[in-house]
Structures are given as structure tokens and as C-alpha cells.
């Protein structure tokens, strides 16, 4: 899971927050200092190729 910095108190807002090993971050999420990044996949529309005309 990825996290992004919300508050300048924990880093540069907008940058990814990378927790150190064994670092507790639940209080950062609860306090609104960081948030989870929801990765969205772009929707691609598949179109069927038209059959070639003979």
C-alpha cells in the first residue's frame, strides 16, 4: 500500500510517504497527516475491428 503526505509536519505534502522499518503509522493516518493512495486503472475501451470488406 502506498501513502501520500498530507501535512508538512511529516514531510512535503504531495510526496509519497515511505514508512521506515517497524514504524507505526496508524496515528498518522488517524490524525490526517498522511493518507492512502488509491491507484485507479485507466479504463480502456476495446473495440472490435470491423471485418474487411471483400
Amino acid at each position: 500500500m502506498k501513502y501520500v503526505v498530507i501535512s508538512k509536519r511529516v514531510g512535503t505534502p504531495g510526496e509519497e510517504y515511505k514508512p521506515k522499518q517497524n514504524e507505526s503509522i496508524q496515528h498518522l493516518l488517524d490524525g490526517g497527516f498522511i493518507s492512502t493512495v488509491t491507484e485507479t486503472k485507466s479504463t480502456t475501451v476495446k473495440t472490435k475491428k470491423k471485418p474487411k470488406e471483400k
Partner: protein
Amino acid sequence: MATSTYLSNCRVQVGATTANIDITDQCSGATVTIGYDPLVTDAFGKNYHSHTAGLQANEVQLDLYASFAASETYSALKSLVGLGTCQVIITPDPDAAVSATNPALTFSNTFLASLPLVTAVGALGTYSVTFMNGSYAEDITP
């Protein structure tokens, strides 16, 4: 006259296990106590009291401005109350890199027993919080 003086201006960081929240701009005072429990070693043959060091007995007391806004003191401290794993780092010069002359005074596994809010008419609300005990180490790694 003193050849070197220190104008108080610390960087203050706190956190649940790692001091990952910088609350410097909300802190107006800090009292840092580093020491040991004195164990009495009085014995026959001496005409004075004597001691040896017992367990570390450390304490960090912070004076903070109260704020209930997002990502401010209340949200930073509320989840630390009752935890015995809090870490507090006090760095004497907030603008300089950590070094032998600007050590990061690191208190780990401290306990925050309470979050006392002090309010009065016409005055800024404050918290006076005390991180008790835990271990102390001096970090001089830049």
C-alpha cells in the same frame, strides 16, 4: 563571560514508535531531564552517603499550543496517550544538520500518561505534556 551560549530554539518531533511528526512550531518550551535513579551504596567505613546509578530516569516535558485543527497538536497527541512506545526527539538547532555539536536527543519507549488541556478566558489554550521514562540515546548521525 561565557565563550559559547545557546539561544533556546529546538526542533521537537514526536511519534508512536518513531518521532515522525514535527511539532516545533506549536512548542513554546521544553524541559529535558536525562539521568539515573540513585541507588544508595552506604556502607560501614564511610562517613558520607554514596550512590551508584540505577535505571535510567528520563523525562521530556513540552509546552504546546492547543489546536484542534487537522494535523495539529490534538490530532498529533491524542493517539499517543497511554502508549508506552512513544519516541521524542529534541534537536537543539532546528535549522542545522544533526552532528556532534547538534545532537538529536532521542527518547524511546516513553510513556505519555495524559493530555492536559489548559484554557483560560482571553488566553491561548495550551497542553503541558510529559513523556515519562523510556531510554535515552544521543544521535549524532547526520
